[in-house]
């Protein structure tokens, strides 16, 4: 099977990228993803369950993530939960998207989008 081109999946929506990032270091179940995204963005991005699972469905279909099975979460009342993990392709896509964003940021700097005030504060 020929390798899928990660660039064809770009650009990702911010929510999609956040979900992929939350799975980068470990596999997680849905609620953990929501919590992780909220924590990492300081509460800026709050995913609803409907939104999350619409994304999960699409990411599963696109082969960016897969299920790693059903098992209890000891921290969550030991109820059985379905865990998801990033696939190699999903990782490629996330990396490609981050590179794309870096590129965008570089271009923004080149055209001095941030102006002096911005530079003073960052310097």
């Amino acid at each position, binding site marked *: 099977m020929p390798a899928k081109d990660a660039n064809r999946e770009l650009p990702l929506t911010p929510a999609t990228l956040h979900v992929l990032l939350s799975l980068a270091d470990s596999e997680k*179940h*849905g*609620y953990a993803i*929501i919590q992780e995204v909220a924590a990492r963005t300081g509460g800026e991005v*709050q995913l*609803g*369950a*409907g*939104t*999350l*699972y*619409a994304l*999960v*469905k699409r990411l599963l279909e696109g082969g960016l993530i897969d299920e790693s099975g059903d098992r209890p979460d000891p921290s*969550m009342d030991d*109820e059985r*939960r*379905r865990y998801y993990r990033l696939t190699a392709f999903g990782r490629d896509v996330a990396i490609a998207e981050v590179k794309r964003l870096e590129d965008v940021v570089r271009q923004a700097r080149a055209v001095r989008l941030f102006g002096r005030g911005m530079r003073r504060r960052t310097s």
Partner: protein
Amino acid sequence: MKRRRPGARRLRALTWLFPGSVREAHGRDIRQVWQAQHDAASSTADRARFWSEALTDVLRTAPRQHLDELRRDLRYAFRGLRLSPGFAITAVLTIALGVGATSGVFMLLDAVLLRPLPYRNPSRVGLVWAVGPGGEHTWLSAPELDDLGARSTTLEGIAGLSDLRMILTGAGDPRELQAAGVSAMLFPLLGVEAQAGRLFGPADDREGSGLAVVLSDRFWRTQFGGRSAVIGTGLTLNDRTYTIAGVLPASFTILPPSSVFPAHVDVWVPLQTHLASRGRDVRMLHAVARLRPNATFREAAAELSSVGLQVSRDFSSSYPNGAVRFDIVSMRDDVLKGVRPALAGIACVVALVLGIACANVASLLLARAESRRREMAIRASLGASRARLARQLLTEGGLLAAIGGALGLGLAGAAMTITSLPVLSHLPRIDQVGYGWRVVQFTALVSLGTAVLFALAPALELSRHAEDRRTGVLQQGARGPRAARVGRLLATIEVALAAAGVVVALTMALGVARALTRSPGFEPSQVLTMRLSTMPGVRPPAEFPTFFDRVIEEVRALPGVTSASAVTQLPMSGAMLGSSFRADDRPDAAPVDADLRGITTDYFQTMGIALIAGRAFDAGDDERGRRVAIVDEGLARRLSLDGQAVGRRIRWIRQPDVPIEIVGVVRAVRHRGLDQEPVETVYRPHAQYPRGSMYLTVRVAGEPTAWSGSVAAAVHRVDPSQLVADVAPLSALERRSIAQPGLGALVGGLLGTLALVMTAVGVYGLFAFAVAQRRREMAIRLAVGATPGGIVRLIARDGARIVGLGLAIGLPVAFVAAQLLGSLMPAVAATGQGPFLYGAGLVIVVAAIACGVPARRASRIEPNAVLRAE
């Protein structure tokens, strides 16, 4: 046991907003997330925020998921149909034919009959009639109209209408216009407003006020190019100058309240100043009334009845036949009354055609479901739920219905080219037939309905597939007994529907055909007719007879003309002059109603109406001679039991002191049309009954229209200014008189044929499929010694059972339908058992062919080849 956590039930309910596939894959996960968030909310405010956020989230994401699902289903369904084009095309065409036939009929009926009339609150508008001795509706006289207006409390208002012919001069060649005299309050009563200028007001109804005329939109556009500058200018009608007051809106129509009222009117004039007579016994007004807000038609009819009694008491000398009765019928009912039988017949057959189409497609889908059992079972075992598979099948059905429906709508539109047929031109609002929202909505509804109907059988089948999954049945075997039963049931229903449809169609067609072959009582071929109206003031009534005599003399001298005459009303033109006569030797008996016609001497000879007894009129029957009349055989029988009418005396109710001697009896004529019974008729010599407007009837030796020019020229040699109108062969009138029943029979016949063809396809499909499924069984039977003939008999027996049962159900249904039709349509009533025999025969023959072809194929199976392949 686990305790239910707080909010769990509501959370579960919320997940139902997602499509099944999402619920199946992630429903539990979603609930778990919600449950965790719900449990984490400590205060009431937090919980409220959770619920609002969860709900917003679902409402934002679920619709898109549904749409995605639908798109996927549609894509899958499309692919499925593309992979089996034979099935797809057959199903789509079947639906298109069924839906198209239904939509086409609806399109026609909606424009002509069903669409509300363009009046304010049209359901409260009715027609008021006087009731004749036989219970038939007849017109009102001017004083009666006034009485009803003054005495009724249930009517908001009542307005009279009378059709007139007016001659337009001063605008090119003189020509005759269709006019109507109407009470000033007609337009306000209907809630119609002028599109330019004004309509009539109370002042227009008064004698002595300036003459006003209101134009129809059509006349305004054709005559004046739609210029509003003509408002206020003059128009010369019947040698008098009228002021153009205004123009009616284009949408305005007055549905002809009876056959004598024209469908299209050019100019409208105030009634009061155009009344031919104010006599209480001269009944020639149609009346339109509006109910008061709280009154019903039933109450109004009861009140009008009692007004009739009062009026009869107050003017008893004017009602020698006893009390007059008045009646009111809602305009819609009145309009539908005449066409309801044909309508009912066509609606029946259309419903049957649609039913057969549904059964056919259901049968097709069922066969397809059978051959897809394996696919379904595999999908089910891979985790597709029953609901998911049902949804897929329903999407397929919906897709078929949508494509078929759209195609059907196109077919219906194409079929509407028939509205330009000349025979239909006299139907009201026929020019408004076309696509509209109502038609599209109707078609969508019918398509949806059919989708539900024909997708039902496969959906039922689905429960079996679910069982297959449970029992792990994956092999493809012979058709299951249950599917075979459903298939047979569908075929039986189709045969029943087809039998009923064909019999009803045949009943209508045979009824009309019989009417066509009946003698009209005269010889219509090779007769040219034209109307000669005398302009007011051109010649005094005393000179009418001489004028027509001279015209006839001139015409008779033309080469190729064998006979010429004139008559006041042509047969089958719809024009009647109802009157009453009393026999001198039976003064106590009630007067006899008869149609009165004035004729010139050679009328019976020209028309080919046979003289049964006595003599025809001759030159001696002039205004100085003895008053004479000729009656038809029907009236002769009514006047005296022995039919010996010649020599008897009768009196016309309008001139009771003048005795009229009957000098001859002629064959009865179907004056009202071929499908109607003859009307009793009294003929008077025109010299004793002079009329300014008569129809010339000329018998020629060839195609009548070839003489149009020379006959008109002969008329103009007598009077160059004489108007010649409505030139037509008599046979055209005869044809027109059966146009409506004929159209009904034609449409019914076409639909019946369609029903038969679709049933043939359905029955063939069923047996072809059954034979294909039973190849193995047949092969084994043949291998163990069955003969090919035995195989054919086996299948034929099966077919015979279906046809027998179908006929046993369909024929009684048809019988009831035919009885109903017969009670409404006299021409259909006496068709007897012919349609049933022919209809059953047709269905049997068609079914035999449809089942015979597969049977033959089955008998030719090579057992060795089939069994080796297995």
